[in-house]
């Protein structure tokens, strides 16, 4: 599943907000969220992430395939949401734990999953590796056409 990464404001701002992509199954009609779990392994809970200072010391470091959370829907499916971005985990959205509805109602704003800060040296290359809205829509279109 594709994730649409969301760079806040201007390209050199560097903060990335991870949200569910438009086409994600969880955002399609009929899906209800049963639970959201930030405990991704026995030793690692994203909720325990603590950062300090300007340089965000102590943050859990994420690679592209690092899981952020697992979401179960009421129809028995489980989805793992991956970071897709290398960088320091700044925060995960605890609001969706108390109010899972916003994940589906406002996936691109209040229903965000996590905030990640890539390394300064990597920020440009990461931005370049992302798709624009237009490019994303083209990919979706291609996918639709190929499956039909």
């Amino acid at each position, binding site marked *: 599943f594709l994730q649409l990464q969301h760079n806040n*404001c201007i390209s050199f701002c560097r903060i990335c907000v991870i949200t569910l992509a438009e086409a994600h199954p969880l955002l399609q009609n009929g899906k209800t969220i049963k639970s959201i779990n930030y405990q991704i392994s026995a030793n690692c809970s994203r909720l325990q992430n603590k950062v300090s200072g300007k340089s965000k010391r102590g943050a859990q470091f994420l690679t592209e395939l690092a899981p952020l959370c697992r979401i179960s829907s009421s129809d028995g499916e489980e989805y793992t949401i991956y970071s897709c971005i290398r960088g320091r985990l700044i*925060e995960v959205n605890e609001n969706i734990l108390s109010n899972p509805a916003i994940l589906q109602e406002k996936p691109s704003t209040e229903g965000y999953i996590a905030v990640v800060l890539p390394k300064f040296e990597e920020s440009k290359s990461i931005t370049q590796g992302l798709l624009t809205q237009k490019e994303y829509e083209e990919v979706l279109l291609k996918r639709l056409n190929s499956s039909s």
Partner: protein
Amino acid sequence: MSSLTEKDRPIVQLLLNTGTCPRCILRFCCVGSQTLYRHPYKDLMKDLKEFLKNNQEKEDTVCSDVVDPPCKRIRLEHTEGGPGDLNHNGALQQIPSVNDGNAAMEDSAVKVCNVCLGILQEFCEVDFVKKVCQKVNSADYQFTSFVFSVSLPPQLSVRERAAWLLVKQEMGKLGLSLAKDDIVQLKEAYKWIIHPQLSEELGVPADGKSLFEVSVVFAHPETEDECRFLATACPDCFKPAKNKQSVFTRMAVIKALEKIKEEDFLKHFPCPPSSPKNLCVALEIQCNNGAVFVAGRYNKYSRNLPQTPWIIDGERKLESSVEELISEHLMAEFKADSFNFSSSGREDVDVRTLGNGRPFAIELVNPRRIRFTAEEMKGLQQTINNSSDKIQVRDLQLVTRSAIGRMKEGEEEKTKTYSALIWTDKAIQKEDIAFLDDIKELKLDQKTPLRVLHRRPLAVRCRIIHTMQSEYIDEHHFRLHLKTQAGTYIKEFVHGDFGRTKPNIGSLLNRTADILELDVESVDVDWPPTLDN
């Protein structure tokens, strides 16, 4: 030389013979009369010789009367170089006799002092004074007084110590003691001599508190390595060198000299100190004026102007800045080296500052011009205001350094008022926003906004919106006036920042809201004082 007495005799003789200049001799004899040091070098030398001669003659007569024939004998036998002499000077180095000393004294006008390395010789002369004043005058500073600061090579402290030990030992023979603190400090004596000359040439008084500093750095490359032995004797006094600077700083050397034992010192350093071939050199003569501070309030009318220059990777992203537009003219008028701009808070690039404006202060570093009348400041204000329509300044005035503190306290403590143009996704009617006017002291929890999170620590800020006043525009727009606590992020209060500022306008209205325009209406700090603009 009335300041010198009998007990000074052996010291004077000893120091003169070992290559010490008259003024240093006076210092070690604890002569505190400033005027004496100001006498011309040749006169001082002559007087010292006279002093010794008189005593010599006296000694002759005394010797002939008193049972102390060795005096005469020694003198004669030294000239003959006979063996088995009573060496008058005990265990120290073989010292040339008085007569030889006389010959040496003839040349001592050119002989560089083995203690001050020429500081109290050449560098008290009119030529050097003229050189300094020439530098000062060509630098074209405005000043009403000066402070003259001198940086001496560290080995002077070492030589001073050696000379003191020498004199101490000599005095010990007479049953006298000489405390280090009784000796006149070299720097002090130097200032006694050079201040009046500089003062006369520059036409202003010397004043320790002056903001105008003339500084000279002296070095003596020939003896640079003389401090090295201290590093082996007291290694913990010398920290590893930062950058390329020498480890042997004056402070470190003085500290080591305090620690080192006399015996160890004498083992490693010649006593008396050797006579150098060359004088010190004056490495640099520099002038510096203390910073002046200009304060005022600025208005910002552009939505495309950063407060400080916006430069990424050497590329300027937006033209100019508030600080440059204001400082440019001040730098030119005050002829300063650089400036430091600070203000009571700041606004984003796209935010205007209206009303009375925001207090700011500029530190002008090393200004050549420092005196400006109120009229001139007004003129300067006008010049700045005429040069740009993006910013305007008012209440431009000179202030003291302490005033900066007042301005900064405004940043953290004082309220601000804003005007925000707000858009909503779902339609609104007048009634839907009226309730905002009734909300007082609304508490917000604001997580560090995403737009600044890359350069600020993650934290939650509690801030208060004191009052609000809404102005309905149409179904999707209204204007909101707010009065808030210092440090409140207004934009985030409007759009919610991904739900990380709670409550926010969106949550209060149960809609999605965004901010289209923001203006600062007032910064409620009553500093700097309002002038008749």
